[in-house]
């Protein structure tokens, strides 16, 4: 049951925010469009991963590339959501540095057929930093509408909860795979899947607030 929950049910829930986004035509709003594309990409990657897994092909190299693509999507989302970041050189530096680091990691440091337990937590750290920067920036603005009516607030909250809670899991993933029992492995997998589900629900809540006037 847990296996089904982790490998089928939760990955399938990506259809909830995607469906909501398409119905609400959120692609007219630039940050939401980037998030929608990210979810589509995540959904497709999950399907490919599953197919590879079913054919007993090691799908971990896909994770290395997925991490880079996920990072780029989320960075673009923040660049479009935080006005100050649109022209900042820091965001462009981050755009280039992390993918470079990630490629160096799987070429020279970690095996591409193992979990990327160095680069994935680093990507999570940068994303957590940007989430906090978003909240800091938000608190400095004079906001005229309630917090819950702003779509980006929900999406950033979802990202913050997911990446900060999964941070330790990302870092210890190789250790868990190699040393922990199957039971423990699935417990951690279940927790991670629940966090993914929570992020998808938060993104859905954000998409529901998008107004295309």
């Amino acid at each position, binding site marked *: 049951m847990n296996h089904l929950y982790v490998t089928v049910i939760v990955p399938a829930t990506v259809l909830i925010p995607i469906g909501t986004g398409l119905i609400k035509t959120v692609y007219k709003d630039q940050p939401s469009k980037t998030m929608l594309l990210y979810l589509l990409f995540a959904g497709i990657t999950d399907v490919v991963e599953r197919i590879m897994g079913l054919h007993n092909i090691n799908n971990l190299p896909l994770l290395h590339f997925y991490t880079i693509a996920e990072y780029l999507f989320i960075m673009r989302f923040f660049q479009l959501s935080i006005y100050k970041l649109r022209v900042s050189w820091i965001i462009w530096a981050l755009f280039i540095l992390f993918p470079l680091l990630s490629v160096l990691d799987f070429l020279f440091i970690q095996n591409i057929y193992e979990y990327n337990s160095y680069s994935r937590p680093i990507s999570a750290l940068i994303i957590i930093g940007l989430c906090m920067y978003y909240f800091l920036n938000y608190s400095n603005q004079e906001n*005229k509408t*309630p917090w819950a009516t702003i779509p980006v607030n929900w999406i950033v909250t979802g990202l913050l909860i997911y990446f900060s*809670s999964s941070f330790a899991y990302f870092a210890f993933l190789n250790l*868990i795979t190699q040393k922990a029992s199957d039971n423990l492995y699935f417990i951690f997998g279940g927790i991670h899947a629940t*966090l993914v589900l929570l992020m998808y629900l938060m993104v859905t809540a954000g998409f529901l607030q998008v107004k295309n006037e």
Partner: protein
Amino acid sequence: MNDNVYVLLLISIGGVFMLVVSFVLIFIRNQNNLLKKQRELQQAQLMHQQDLLKTVIVSQEAERKRIGQDLHDDVGTALSNMRITIEMFNNTATAVSEFSSACKHQIDKIVQDVRHISHNLSPPGLEMYGFMGTLEELAEFITATGKLQVNITDNTNSLTDRFGADVSLSLYRVFEELLNNTIKHANASQVNINFDIADDYLLIRYHDNGQGIAAAGKTKKGMGRQNIESRLGIIGAAYEDDFPGRTGFNMSIRLKTDNI
């Protein structure tokens, strides 16, 4: 060391999750409180603006009524008297002299009444003698009645003579209102008005040695006070009239010299 690394990992995930969720919830609560306070402030400002507007309208109506009464009671009555005098004119040599004298007297009275009304509408001294000259004239007039001694000190190096028409009229009306309040409510014997320059501001201090606002039972803003606030607001001046511990009534007005 018997610690289970997986249990520690589980605790870490749970701890971070709770920390982040708590942070977000506190942040949302804080933002919503801030928004609520902003809205309350906007509402209060709107109410205040409405009060000021109401005061302006009420004052205008009161002024119109007063002008109407003055015209009716003084000018109207004098013209009626003149009409009666003309109707009763008897064309004899002695009557012509009396008639001429009566007419001249009534015409003089009408001229005086009209002048009085027009002076009330717009003090002519402001154009002729400037703000300070007109205010000194008002002070002398009040002092001459013996009810109140009004002292004016100008340390602005003639800045007060360079006031624009709107600043002059607004400040003159404010002092008329303040002096009127002092005479009516303060039970004071002396008023000091000081004009100074502090940095880029003209600082005007009004002080009477009366019983103060609290003792006069005027803690709520009456129409006169709202008129003062409205007139000062028009010329961009800030004021303060609550100085705990000081005797009598005090008001401090600050006006940027650039606005003069």
